[in-house]
Every structure is written in C-alpha cells, then in structure tokens.
C-alpha cells in the first residue's frame, strides 16, 4: 500500500514505528503535488521548504518519544487561514501579496500538534462560491472528472485530499463550503458547532455563519484532526468555553437505538433521483446497524437560501470594508483622490462574485431596507433554529442529501448566480442554526460521488462522527480512489 493511501492512524503508527520518517512522508506528498497538481490547481502556494523544516522538527520530536498522534503528518491549510510568514490570499487578488504577521489559532494548534503544512489550498474568492470558479488563482478541477468542479468554496482542500495530494485538509463552511465539496469529491467533511473552533485568524466572510472544520478520507481521520483544532479561544468572543469531547474515543460505540430523522423537506422536488437512490440505500445501512429512522419536519428549511443570501452578504459587505488599499492588500496605482483610491483598489482587487455580494449586502443593510431584509432574515433564522430544536427533541441525528446531484461541469452555472446559490439548499440551514453537520460518501451516480449529510444537535459532534464511522465500517465508498490519482 502506498503512503498516501494510509489513514491518519496508520500514518501515525508508521511514523512512531519508524517505518518511514515525516521527511519521507512529506517528500512523498510534495512529489505527488508536483506531478498531479498542474491538472487540478488545488494549491495556491506550496510551502516545500517550510514543510521539510517542520517534518524534520517532527522527526526529532518522534525520535525523542514525544509528539501527538498527528506529529509528522502533513496537511493542506485552506488559504483563508492566516499563516505567519506565508502568503494568505483568500483566493483574491486583493490579498495576492498579503503575508500575515500572525497565525490563525487553528494553524497554531495544528503546528503545535506537530503537523506539517504542505501548502495553502485554493478556494473561491473570500469563500464566496460553490464551485471554486471564483478564485483569482483559477478554478480547481475535480479529481473524479477534471472537466467538473470540485464544489466550493473549499475546492482546493477537497481536490488535494481526494487526489492524495494531502492526507487531510482544513476547510471552512459558511453555507456548505466544507460539506458540498466533500460530497462532490467522495470525502468526509465536518463543520462543527458554531463556536467550537476558533475563528481567530480565519479571514471572515460572514462572521455569524463561518466555522472551520476538516475534510478527510474517513470519519476517523476527521475526528482526530477536529479534536486537535477544537476548543475555547480567548481571542474569539464567539468561541464557546466548554471542554472538547473525546471524538476519537467516541468512535466504536454501537449505534443500536440511534434515532435518525429524515426531514421530508430534504427529499422534495429538486433532488436528483440518482442521489436519492444513494441516500435511501444509506438509510437502509443505518437501519441495518440498529438505528431507528423516522420522518421529521423542518418546515422553514425551504427559506434557508433566501435567508442566507441576505445575512451572509450583509456581514460580508461589512467584513470586507477593511480592504481599502490603505494599510495592506491591493492598492491601485496612480490615484489622485481618496475616493479614487477606494474605488479603484476595491474595484481592481475584488472579483465579480465578491463585488456582487458586497452590493447585495450593502443594499440589505441600507436605511429603509434594513427592516424588510436584514431584520426579517434574522427572524426567519430564528424560526429555522427553532425547527432544529424541535426536531432534536425527537431524534438524535438528522440525515439527508448534501447536494442535489453530482458535480457540475466547469462553467455550467458560473453565469447564473441564482442557480449557483441553490447548490447550497441542503447545507445552509445548519449554518443558520449553528449546529454541527457533516457529509460522507454514500455511493456513486454516473461514476461520480454522492454525499450523505448528517446534522447533529449542538456540540454533538462525537455522536455524529461515530455514526459516520459505523456507516464507514459497513460500506467502502470512502475507500475508492479517482482514476489517475491512485
């Protein structure tokens, strides 16, 4: 078995048993990136020297009998996380030359755990997109079919992991940006409860929705890395001061008696029959494992998309106001007035989708429209939250599709923003409510991956990860490799 086919547990065991060193493992991945990434464009920046230095440090720790389960294991960081000394572009021309003087909290934590950063993963510009076509650094291709999109906004993270160009990657999810691309690339991706992982140093898109998480090749791999990323951070006022559950330790428990709810709104019109068949088959697997399945209702779920596309752009228009060409980031040349500096720096630095969302957000926060849009959206958001509270009174987990269908072809919807926004229809509600949710491989339709979504109650990541893990013990979809990248 080749190194890149090993699970994180196997990699850790191999490193500790000195079967291979972190340097060898890192070089293996750097070699694969060199060979395969030109076809995928999953990395914006590859940090080979830094990676090898980290690998050597990890090897020294391991030789001294120190280090964690993750020491010496490489990963890709989504280019939304600030990394001291390494460019953090957020997929934007605006930050093409931006080098943060600080690390995001999760970067600090994973560095501290001894992980080796291979590079910064491509993404939709400022995480705004569902196909990774809005990146200033060009679109990312789906390893399962390079004519198709990998999903977004964490398109680089999933393409890298799916193609074996990183064993695991960080990602972020504001409206589905971890789960939808994980579904389209046959990966396991988890967005934890809002407030579980620090947002410090993660460039904000929509602050009340953004949450960092992991994309991995199994629920077990995801659990190990999420464990290391999670926890209270005094630098983030929205992070929750509550101990982190033992996600890894929770794996292995039987799910007999687990109550799973199928929201009827998630199986209505719009779901591709091919995807539906995969989800229904998965439900049978869960039943076979002893789970009880019943229908639940999330009556306000159909309002998720319009609600999200008011709240998220509103916050984005505000969060992106700081990119003004004054202190850092793109600054237009040859300007004569302050207004010209702002207009041209922002006009040149931001791509079309980002500009569109800034305009929508500015509009919905404007005097006279605030009540009709922003305030109304907040009220609907509350109703969506109430739906979940009610549902979790009846069931332990909610199961449904992650996306309506398989990955689309590059360019298919990039001229139709509304069609693109509808991609997020199943994923957005979890962000609006703040609950944890994940996607895991549930089979193939037309040889392309289909994802299954699980949603859990607040801080119930452990139970959700274990359910996914049990499912993955009974299935082998997650073990399949895209042709040409084995």
């Amino acid at each position: 078995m080749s190194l890149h086919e090993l699970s994180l547990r196997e990699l850790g065991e191999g490193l500790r048993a000195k079967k291979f060193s972190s340097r060898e493992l890192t070089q293996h991945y750097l070699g694969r990136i060199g060979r395969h990434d030109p076809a995928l464009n999953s990395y914006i920046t590859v940090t080979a020297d830094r990676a090898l230095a980290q690998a050597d440090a990890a090897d020294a720790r391991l030789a001294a009998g120190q280090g964690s389960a993750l020491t010496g294991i490489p990963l890709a960081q989504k280019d939304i996380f600030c990394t001291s000394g390494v460019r953090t572009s957020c997929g934007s021309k605006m930050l093409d030359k931006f080098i943060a003087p600080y690390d995001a909290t999760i970067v600090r934590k994973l560095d501290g755990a001894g992980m080796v950063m291979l590079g910064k993963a491509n993404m939709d510009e400022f995480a705004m997109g569902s196909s990774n076509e809005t990146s200033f650094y060009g679109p990312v291709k789906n390893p399962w079919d390079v004519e198709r999109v990998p999903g977004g906004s964490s398109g680089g993270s999933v393409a890298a992991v799916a193609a074996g160009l990183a064993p695991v990657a960080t990602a972020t999810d504001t409206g589905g940006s971890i789960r939808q691309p994980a579904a389209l690339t046959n990966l396991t991706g988890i967005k934890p409860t809002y407030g579980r992982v620090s947002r410090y140093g993660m460039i904000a898109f929509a602050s009340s929705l953004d949450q960092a998480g992991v994309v991995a090749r199994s629920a077990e791999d995801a659990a190990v890395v999420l464990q290391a990323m999670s926890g209270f951070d005094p630098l983030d006022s929205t992070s929750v001061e509550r101990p982190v559950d033992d996600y890894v330790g929770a794996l292995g428990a039987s799910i007999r008696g687990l109550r799973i709810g199928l929201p009827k709104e998630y199986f209505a019109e719009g779901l591709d029959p091919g995807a539906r068949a995969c989800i229904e088959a998965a439900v049978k697997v869960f039943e076979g494992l002893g789970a009880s399945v019943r229908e639940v209702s999330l009556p306000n779920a159909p309002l998720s998309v319009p609600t999200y596309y008011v709240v998220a752009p509103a916050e984005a228009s505000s969060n992106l106001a700081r990119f003004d060409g004054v202190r850092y980031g793109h600054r237009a040349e040859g300007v004569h007035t302050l207004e010209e500096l702002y207009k041209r720096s922002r006009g040149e630095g931001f791509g079309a989708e980002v500009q569109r969302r800034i305009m929508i957000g500015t509009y919905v926060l404007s005097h006279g429209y605030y009540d009709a849009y922003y305030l109304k959206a907040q009220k609907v958001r509350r109703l969506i939250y109430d739906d979940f509270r009610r549902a979790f009174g009846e069931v332990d987990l909610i199961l449904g599709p992650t996306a309506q269908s398989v990955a689309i072809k590059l360019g298919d919807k990039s001229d139709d923003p509304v069609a693109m926004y509808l991609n997020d229809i199943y994923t957005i509600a979890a962000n609006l409510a703040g609950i944890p949710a994940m996607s895991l491989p549930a089979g193939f339709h037309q040889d392309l991956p289909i994802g299954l979504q699980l949603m859990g109650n607040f801080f119930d990541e452990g139970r959700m990860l274990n359910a996914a893990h049990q499912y993955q013990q009974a299935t082998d979809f997650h073990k399949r490799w895209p042709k040409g990248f084995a």
Partner: protein
Amino acid sequence: MSSTTWEAVIGLEVHCQLMTKSKIFSGAATAYGAEPNTQADGVTLGFPGVLPVLNGDALRMAVTFGLAVGAEVAERCVFARKHYFYPDLPKGYQISQFELPIVGKGKLDIELDDGHGGVIHKTIGITRAHMEEDAGKSLHENYSDATGIDLNRAGTPLIEIVSEPDIRTAQEAVAYLKKLHQLVVYLGICDGNMQEGSFRCDANVSVRRKGEPFGTRTETKNVNSFRYVEKAIEFEIDRQIREIESGGEIIQETRLFNPDTGETKSMRVKENSNDYRYFPDPDLLPIVCTPEYIADIRGKLPELPEAKRARFEKDYGLSAYDARTLTSSRELAAYYEAVVKASGAEAKLCANWVATDLLGALNKIGKDIDTSPISSDALAGMLKRIVDKTISGKIAKEVFEAMLAGEGDADTIIKAKGLVQITDESAIVKAIEDVIAKNPGQLAEYRSGKDKLFGFFVGQAMKATQGKANPDVLNRLLKEKLAG
C-alpha cells in the same frame, strides 16, 4: 439675541475616553503621545481574520458612569457596526452601540448663577450613554500632498454621553459640561484632559420662537474647551437667528468651530445622506450585566460630588461656598480631609487655609493639588503650631510662604527664623510700656475717647516684638495698660 422672542434648544454629545490601560477590543496600550502607530496591533489595524474581545475594565467604567447619573444600566446591551470609509477608521466601520446601549436615561443636576449672588438649580436629562471605539488621527501637517495616519488612538474606549435637548443657553451648556467633567474625573473613569481630547464635546443647536416646535439643528464638532463651547454655541445661536430673521433657512449640517475667529463653519452638507448601515456586530455576543455584577459596581462607587459637598457642610460646618470649592475635585477633597485629620485644627480654619491660601498660591505658580509643593501633612504640621499657639495666624502666613519656597517643614522654618510666638507676659508688657512711653500724644487722645487708636497701639507693639507677640495676650495686656 432678543431673548423675549427667541429661544435656543441645545443638546450635547460628549465623547469621554475611558482610562483603561489597553484598548476596548485588544491588548494594545492607550497611552497618549506615543510615536505614531506604535500602539497599533493587528486588531487596531483591522487586519484580516483578527477579532475584537471586549475589555472588561471599559464595561465596568461605563456601568459606573450609568449608576452615577442614576440611569438604568442595561442587563443586555449590543455592539453594532457603524460603517463609513475613512483612512483613520481601519475596518471601514466603527464598533459602537446603536439600538441597545449600556446606559439608558439618567440625569445631571446643574447650578447656575442667578446674577444676584444666588443659585438656580436645573436638571438636564441624559438620554443615553454608549460604549464605542475611538478612531485614529489623520495628520495633515508635514505632508505636502499626502495625509499621514496615526492609529494609536484607534480603538481607545469611549463612552458617548448624549443629553436631552434640555439646555437653553451657552452658560447652561458650560455648567452641564463642567458638571459632567467633574463627575467622570471623580469616578476615575476619565482623565478629563480636554487638550489631549480625552473629553470632547459636539453641540447640537437649534433656535425657535418661544412656544414653537424645535427648529432645524446644526451639530458643531469637537469643541475642546469650556470657553470654546460657550463661544461656539453663542455664535451658532446668533447666526441661526440672523439667518431666519433675514428670511433664510437653517440647514441640518455639521459645522466646525474655529477658535481663532470664534465662528463656526459648515463642514459638510447633506448630513442626512450618510447611511451608516448599523447592524449588530456578529463578532461580539450581546453583553449581559447580571444584577450581581451591577450591585458589585454600585457598592464600589466613590462618594459623588453632591454627597461629599453635603457631608462637608454637615460634618465640618462649612459654608456652601467652601464646601463646593473643596469638593470640586476628589484630590482636593481628600487633601482637605487629610489636613483636618492630621492637624486636629478646627475644620473651618483648615478650610480657609486650603481653599484660600493654598489654592491661591497654587494658582499663582500654575500647579494643582496633585503637584502641590506643600503636602497635606506639611500643611497640617503648620496648623498644629497655630493650634498650640507656637505661632499666630499672622506668623503662619510667613511660615506658609517659606514652605511654598521649599525651605522645609513648619517646625524647621519656625526654628530657623525664630518665629516662635511670645506668650511670656513680662516681655509683652515691656514692649507695651515702651510703645506707650514713646507715644504720649496718642495715649492722651485714646484716653479722651478715641478708641480707634487701639489698633495703632496693637500695630506698634506687634512691630516691637517682630510680630511674634501672642495677639490674644497682647490685646488683653494692652487694654489694661492703656486704661492706666
């Protein structure tokens, strides 16, 4: 202003910098006067990905203010983003409070001179006070075709205190501001330094014919002294009346006061077109102040000026005037109380020395009570010598001057200058007899009924003892001797 027909309506917005060590949402220092941009961390600079965390001291100070003006402190308050683009506003928005401020309705009592030696009391309503971050500074000097940005001030905690439009004259406005200034300094939440911008005022002024609804208001920005506030408001009232009387209209606008000309000038028109797009800051959760938290702060409130003044009148038997003077600052009041306690002298005597002699002297040498060359202990040491009759009140003035000049403590000076009071009757009798012998004419006049000459003999006898005779003993003996 023809006061019979016109009336001004004034509301003040005061920005008061809180005396926290670090900024409202980050650990960067807040000290004034550092090299530009040396107190700007990632949060201050608005770097991508950084997040605000509320400074607990800033919240505590805001609550302290609310309690001191009898306002309701919100159990739940919310930070909101106020958006506008300006180079000294790094994030493109200011974190402020909008719909749910920390401090609700309160009030402040002011006193005004009635022009006949009396005092008029008036209550000015406080609409609200909210927490917010200060912006940086744009430096236009030293750059011919560019603007420098200093972000040291950005993120300094402020409370903005908004008054009701209860103020009717420039004098009332100044009285309100002085009272507010005294209060925040008393509370230890603001250093009150108007020169450095720690306490800044914007004045909203409109005029109307008495009995009519409010007129259109203008806002005059950043008037940084009490005198300028008075001048700016007076100018603005006058300008608005002239404008209306000559058939014009008042435009709602922001105006800037020019201290050199004493005039206000339009800064930007179309104030109404500013749309700040306020919305709750998603990076900061709503702030919850529990009843226990508020009770704890209430329990630690210092004695406020009003209460202290009343106590000074009652406990020390001081006049209203002296009590007001001595409680004008917390430091002065503490100084006075320390003097009373350490000297054992009569409270009234202490009051005279502190309020008249000491303050007068400090004023002359341009120092304040904190930097007084005479400590409360030193002044008390001198007063002790008056009490035990070592020196007379008159000699004490000389000792005081010497202390002020840094010649040592009272005992050292008394000893060095030989100023100990003469209470030995035989020595005083001798001096009196000499004076009487030298002035037979005056003696005869006195004895024939010209009582006023008593003062002459006191003066001469004092002079003969170099002022050291105990005045009581001298008076008694002199009366006896003059009577013959």
